[in-house]
């Protein structure tokens, strides 16, 4: 029983919060491999949970939700690197993309294009990531002519169910609703000229949703967001 008692004590103190940082980390590292410890901790969480009602409620400041919302579509590694601009300059970014199926040649091509565009004014870059796991799926780059020439570049193939299609959207900060940029084919680069839209803004939202084969019947996104990202000014 001693082994079980030790396990129970460890699980109980982990949940209670009295372990040191090193001990906490050690417990968390054991969790994936030790279902017995996981179960013991879960049982303690359930036992002690009613104590959370003892803390008096506190109204969060009005800035908290906007802050959370803004972070949602910024992958953790980007936040840790100090934001998109720093991330763009970070080697890890390219390693991640390379791991995600992008070749170094494409990386070089994008970089060179952006450098060329740098001379004719600011360009914009958007990395569209999957909301769940933040894996990058597409890159949007927009450069010359006030950011109205835009390319959507796939980083890999997107599996599309039968009778469904991918629809590409954008939404500026003060726009009431997203505007459709049309249906796109999985795995294919699309170039477009957005002469009917205002110039691109920093933070402008781009997303790809899953829609019926002929596109959204309402003119607004109706299906789940597969990839999403915000425009970042580069150069």
């Amino acid at each position, binding site marked *: 029983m001693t082994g079980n008692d030790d396990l129970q004590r460890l699980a109980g103190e982990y949940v*209670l919060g009295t372990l040191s940082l090193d001990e906490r980390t050690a417990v968390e590292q054991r969790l994936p491999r030790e279902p017995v410890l996981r179960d013991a901790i879960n049982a303690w969480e359930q*036992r002690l949970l009613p104590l959370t009602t003892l803390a008096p409620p*506190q109204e969060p400041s009005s800035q908290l939700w906007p802050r959370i919302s803004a972070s949602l579509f910024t992958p953790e590694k980007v936040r840790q690197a100090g934001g998109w601009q720093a991330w763009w300059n970070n080697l890890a970014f390219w390693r991640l993309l390379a791991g995600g199926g992008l070749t170094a040649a494409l990386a070089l091509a994008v970089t060179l294009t952006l450098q060329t565009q740098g001379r004719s004014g600011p360009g914009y870059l958007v990395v569209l990531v999957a909301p769940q796991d933040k894996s990058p799926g597409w890159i949007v780059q927009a450069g010359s002519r006030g950011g109205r020439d835009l390319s959507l570049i796939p980083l890999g193939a997107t599996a599309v169910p039968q009778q469904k299609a991918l629809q590409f959207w954008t939404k500026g900060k003060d726009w009431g609703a997203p505007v459709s940029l049309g249906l796109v084919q999985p795995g294919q680069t699309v170039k477009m000229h957005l002469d009917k839209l205002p110039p691109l803004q920093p933070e402008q939202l781009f997303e790809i949703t899953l829609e019926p084969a002929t596109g959204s019947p309402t003119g607004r996104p109706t299906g789940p967001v597969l990839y999403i990202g915000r425009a970042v000014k580069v150069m």
Partner: protein
Amino acid sequence: MPIPAATFDYDAALRACARGEQLALHQLYQQESRYLLGVALRIVRQRALAEDVLHDAFLSIWRRAGSFDATRGSGKGWIYVLVRHQALNLMRARAHEITADEDTVESLLQQRQDDGPGESYVLQAEMGRLHDCLGHLEESKRHSILYAYVDGCSHSEIAQRLQAPLGTVKAWVKRGLAALRECMG
């Protein structure tokens, strides 16, 4: 406006988050943020830090909603567990940073005492079995457990609050937990 906790479907909200529906996360936030902030604030003791904890916890909820398993507990409980551990990790990490400076420790301890003693805990009857079992514990063990869980106190902070030797407090926590487990099953 939040709707009564009894009718809000936390599990469904988490499943919607797992599908990437941001509205569901916002609804969870509207429903629960003030209570979660209350829990975090008791542990980290500074408002700005508590909001940081909530920020990171909501990102974790969003990211990890897909791993929520309703057979292992309620969705609401899962969220509280996440927030508490976010807060505890932050505090234990900070403990490393401030031990070098005795004045800081002293002022933090002073601040703690001004926060008011744990006598102010009013155990609530709706805590069910836990309420009864805590009631059966000796006062020192009960306070040790409440200081740790609700206020995020380390062993040495509990020792300071209860004016007891560190080794004694460690024993109270250990035996208090064992007794609780026996009582609650």
